[in-house]
C-alpha cells in the first residue's frame, strides 16, 4: 500500500491490511444501504498521532446530482461514488500542497473493481457536479479529531454510542460540522466505537434513537466478516437473509464477540456440541434396545396407520365444530386453575391455620378490595396489588382529564379532542382544513390522516400546554397583535425552550399557533409556569 505525502492526511489506514480495508468498506456499504442512510464513515486511529481519529474508510449512499432517480442499485455503485469522491478530495489536497500524490492505485481492490468498469473510476469528478451531501462527505475527509473532541472523539473516549438528532443545529463544540450538515440537510448523525476506531453514520432525515437500528448496523458489520473468515475454514454456509441465519452441519462456530445475534449462535453451538458428545456416549446404549417401531408386532397396542383415514374436509368441519371446546382440560389447566389459585388466595376460606389473625378484619378488607375492583376498570386481575396499581393508574388518568377540562373551561362549547363533531356549526364558525403539505411530525392531535378538520370558534381565546417528557406542545388561540408571535417565541426562549416546530396562521385578526418545543437543558419549566408566562404575553384574557 502506498503512502501519500499530503499534508495532514496519511493515506495508510491504521495499519490494517488491504483486505481488511476492503472488507470494512463492504461492511459499511452494506450497513448504510440496508438502513438507507446517507453515508457511513470509519474514523480510524491515526498511526502518527496516538489517540487522534482521522478518516479511515467511508461509503457514500446519498443523492447524487444528475442521478436524482432513485435506484436500488447494487452496493458497488455506492462504493464507486465513494471512491470517486475520495479521489477528488485527494486531488484537491494535491492541488493545495503541490506535492505529488500517488493515490490512484490505493483504492483499487481486486474484488471491488473487477466487475465494474475501470473507466468510470478513473474518471475524475468535476467538483461542480457534487450535490450538497457529497460535499459534506468530501469535506468530512479532511477532519481530524483529537481525543474527546467532537462526536467521534467523544464516542471513542467514552466507548459509548452517541446519537445526535438535529445535527444541523448542534453546537460547534459538540459537532463541528453542524454548519456543513445544515447545508447538506443532514439531520441525524450516529457515532459508535468499533474495532479501535469510530463508525459514523448520517442521514438527511430526523430519526430518533433506535436501538434496533443500531443493533442491525452492528450486526451488518459483523456479518460479512463471518462470511470472509469462514470461506477458508470448513464449509460453513452462513447465508445472510435479513436476521435469519442457517447453519450447516458444523458445530465449530467462531465466537468471541458478545452481541445479541451471537447469543443464538453460541447457544446453538453449545447444544449441538453437547449433543455430539452425548450421542457418541449413548451409541452403545441404543443398539441393544433397537426395537423396530415400524413393525407393529402383535404385542403392540397400536394399529398401523392407514392412508386416507378420513378426508381433510371432515377434519376442518369437525375442528370448527369443536373449536370452542377444544383442548378443554389443557385450557383449564393453563388458565382456569391458576385463576382459581389466585382467587382463593384473595379470599382464603379453606386454608386451615393460615390466616387466623383477625379473620373478620381480613374479610372486610377483602370486601373493600372487591368494591374497589368494581369501580376501577381492571383486566381480570383479582389480586390486591394489581387492583391497587390499576386504581393508581385510573386516578392519574382522571386527574389529567380534569386538568384538561379545566383549561378549556372558559368556553361554553369547547373543542372536543376528536375534533370531528360538526354539529355545532353556525355562521360564526370557521372550518379550517390543513392540507397535506405539513408533515406529520407537526401534528399535535391524535388524528390520523393528512387533512384535518378543525372546528374553531371565532374570538375564543384558548391556551393549551402539554408536557411530554422533554417536549412541550403548545396551542395558542388569541386575537392577533403586532409582534405577538415574536413575543411568544421570546417567552419560550426565556423559559429555556427551543421551538422546533411552529405552525401558525392568522385569519381575521385571530391567530392560531401550534408549536412544539424542547427544553434546552436540564431545567424544566412546569406547565403552570409556561401557561402563566404565555398568558401574560397574549394579553391575559382569561
Amino acid at each position, binding site marked *: 500500500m502506498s503512502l501519500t505525502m499530503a499534508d495532514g492526511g496519511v493515506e495508510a489506514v491504521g495499519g490494517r491490511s488491504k483486505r481488511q480495508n476492503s472488507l470494512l468498506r463492504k461492511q459499511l456499504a452494506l450497513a448504510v444501504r440496508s438502513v438507507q442512510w446517507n453515508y457511513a464513515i470509519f474514523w480510524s486511529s491515526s498511526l502518527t498521532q496516538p489517540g487522534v481519529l482521522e478518516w479511515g474508510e467511508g461509503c457514500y449512499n446519498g443523492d447524487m446530482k444528475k442521478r436524482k432517480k432513485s435506484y436500488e442499485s447494487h452496493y458497488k455503485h455506492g462504493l464507486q461514488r465513494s471512491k470517486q469522491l475520495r479521489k477528488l478530495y485527494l486531488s484537491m489536497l494535491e492541488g493545495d500542497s503541490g506535492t505529488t500524490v500517488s493515490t490512484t492505485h490505493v483504492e483499487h481492490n481486486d474484488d471491488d473493481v473487477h466487475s465494474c468498469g475501470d473507466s468510470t473510476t478513473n474518471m475524475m469528478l468535476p467538483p461542480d457536479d457534487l450535490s450538497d451531501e457529497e460535499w459534506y462527505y468530501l469535506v468530512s475527509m479532511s477532519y481530524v479529531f483529537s481525543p474527546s473532541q467532537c462526536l467521534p472523539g467523544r464516542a471513542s473516549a467514552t466507548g459509548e454510542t452517541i446519537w445526535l438528532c438535529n445535527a444541523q443545529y448542534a453546537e460547534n463544540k459538540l459537532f463541528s460540522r453542524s454548519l456543513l450538515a445544515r447545508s447538506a440537510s443532514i439531520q441525524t448523525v450516529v457515532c459508535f466505537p468499533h474495532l479501535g476506531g469510530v463508525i459514523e453514520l448520517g442521514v438527511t432525515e430526523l430519526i430518533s434513537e433506535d436501538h434496533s437500528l443500531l443493533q442491525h448496523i452492528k450486526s451488518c458489520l459483523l456479518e460479512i466478516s463471518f462470511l470472509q473468515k469462514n470461506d477458508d475454514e470448513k464449509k460453513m454456509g452462513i447465508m445472510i437473509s435479513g436476521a435469519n441465519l442457517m447453519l450447516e452441519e458444523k458445530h465449530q462456530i467462531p465466537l468471541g464477540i458478545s452481541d445479541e445475534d451471537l447469543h*443464538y449462535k453460541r447457544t446453538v453451538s453449545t447444544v449441538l456440541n453437547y449433543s455430539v458428545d*452425548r450421542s457418541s456416549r*449413548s451409541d452403545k446404549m441404543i443398539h441393544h434396545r433397537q426395537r423396530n417401531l415400524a413393525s407393529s408386532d402383535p404385542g403392540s*397396542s*397400536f394399529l398401523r396407520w392407514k392412508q386416507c383415514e378420513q378426508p381433510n374436509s371432515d377434519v376442518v368441519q369437525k*375442528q370448527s365444530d369443536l373449536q370452542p371446546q377444544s383442548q378443554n382440560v*389443557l385450557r383449564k389447566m393453563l388458565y382456569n386453575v*391458576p385463576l382459581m*389459585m389466585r382467587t382463593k388466595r384473595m379470599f382464603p376460606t379453606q386454608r386451615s391455620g393460615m390466616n387466623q389473625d383477625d379473620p373478620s378484619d381480613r374479610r372486610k378488607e377483602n370486601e373493600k378490595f372487591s368494591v374497589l375492583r368494581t369501580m376501577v376498570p381492571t383486566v381480570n386481575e383479582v389480586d390486591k396489588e394489581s387492583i391497587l396499581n390499576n386504581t393508581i393508574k385510573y386516578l392519574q388518568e382522571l386527574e389529567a382529564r380534569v386538568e384538561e377540562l379545566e383549561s378549556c373551561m372558559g368556553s361554553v362549547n369547547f373543542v372536543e379532542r376528536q375534533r370531528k363533531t360538526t354539529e355545532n356549526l353556525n355562521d360564526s364558525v370557521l372550518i379550517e382544513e390543513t392540507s397535506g403539505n405539513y408533515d406529520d411530525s407537526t401534528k399535535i392531535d391524535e388524528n390520523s390522516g393528512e387533512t384535518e378538520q378543525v372546528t374553531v370558534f371565532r374570538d375564543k381565546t384558548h391556551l393549551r400546554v402539554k408536557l411530554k417528557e422533554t417536549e412541550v406542545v403548545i396551542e395558542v388561540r388569541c386575537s392577533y397583535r403586532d409582534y405577538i408571535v415574536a413575543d411568544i417565541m421570546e417567552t419560550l426562549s426565556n423559559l429555556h425552550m427551543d421551538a422546533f416546530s411552529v405552525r401558525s396562521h392568522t385569519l381575521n385578526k385571530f391567530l392560531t399557533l401550534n408549536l412544539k418545543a424542547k427544553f434546552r437543558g436540564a431545567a424544566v419549566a412546569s406547565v403552570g409556569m409556561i401557561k402563566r408566562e404565555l398568558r401574560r404575553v397574549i394579553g391575559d384574557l382569561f
Partner: protein
Amino acid sequence: MDNSAPDSLSRSETAVTYDSPYPLYAMAFSSLRAANTSSGHRIAVGSFLEDYNNRIDILSFDSDSMTVKPLPNLSFEHPYPPTKLMFSPPSLRRPSSGDLLASSGDFLRLWEINEDSSTVEPISVLNNSKTSEFCAPLTSFDWNDVEPKRLGTCSIDTTCTIWDIEKCVVETQLIAHDKEVHDIAWGEARVFASVSADGSVRIFDLRDKEHSTIIYESPQPDTPLLRLAWNKQDLRYMATILMDSNKVVILDIRSPTMPVAELERHQASVNAIAWAPQSCKHICSGGDDTQALIWELPTVAGPNGIDPMSVYSAGSEINQLQWSSSQPDWIGIAFANKMQLLRV
C-alpha cells in the same frame, strides 16, 4: 381412593388400564425400579378437580404381568390440581432407592417416596417470591437430566425460575416472555426453551441471561403455544403445539422461524406430545380426537405431508401423554378418569 383398579385389560389386549375415581391429568414415570416385592415401576398420577383438594396417587406397574395397581399408602393430598409431575432423573444420585417426585401447582413441591414404598414425605415447598407468601401459579416445570439439581419452572407471571433443589434456593429468575409462559424444556445443562401465550418459542442460555433467541413464532400472531417437547436424543429438534390447532410443529433449532415439519393428521386439537426416549426420529401425540399417533420423521417429507406410523384410539379425548424413558416400550396416556399404558 381405595377402589383400586382391577388388573383388567382394556379393549385392546395389550393395553393396561387404571381406573381412577376422579379425572386425571398429570402423570409421571419413575426411572427407578422399586425395591420391594411388587417389583414394578412407579407411576404417579395427579387428579384434576377444579378445587383446592386434589390428590396424587402412586401406582405400581409391572410390565411382565401387565398389571397396574395403586399403592394406597402412597396416595396423598395435593393443593390444587398438579399441573405437572415428574420423578427425579436417573442422573440424580440418591442415597436410597426411594424416589423423589416434584409437583407444580401453586408452588413447586418436592416429595420423597421412601424405599419400601410405605410413605410419602413432603420435603420442601419452594416459593420463589421474596416479598409475598405466594408465588405466581406455575404452569409447568422441567427437571434437567444433565444437571439434576437444576429444575426450571415457568409461570403465568411471564417468568421462568431456575431452582437449585439441593440447596432449595433460586438460581435465577428470568422474565422470559411477554405473556404467560406455558411450558419449559431443558436442552442441555444450561440451555432451556420455553413457550408462551405470546406465541413464541424462545431459547435461553444461563450464561447469557440478558438475551434470548426466538426460534419460532406462531403464524397467527398471539396464538398461544401450549406445550413444548425437546428431543433428548437429537437436540436439534423440538416439537410444540398451538392452541386450537391439530398440528404438531417440529422445529429445528438451527433454522429458526421455519418449522421443519408440521404433522397434521389429527382430526382435532392436539393436547400432548412426547418424543421417543430411545429413538431420535419418533414422536407421539395425543389429542381431542381420542387418538394417539406415533410418527416417524423422515429425512425428506413427501408432497402430502407426513403420515403417522401407527394409531391408537382411546375412549375419550386424550389429555396427557408420557413416554416412559426407563421402559421405552410403553406409552402412558390419560383420558377422562383413566390412565392407560400402551405397548408400542
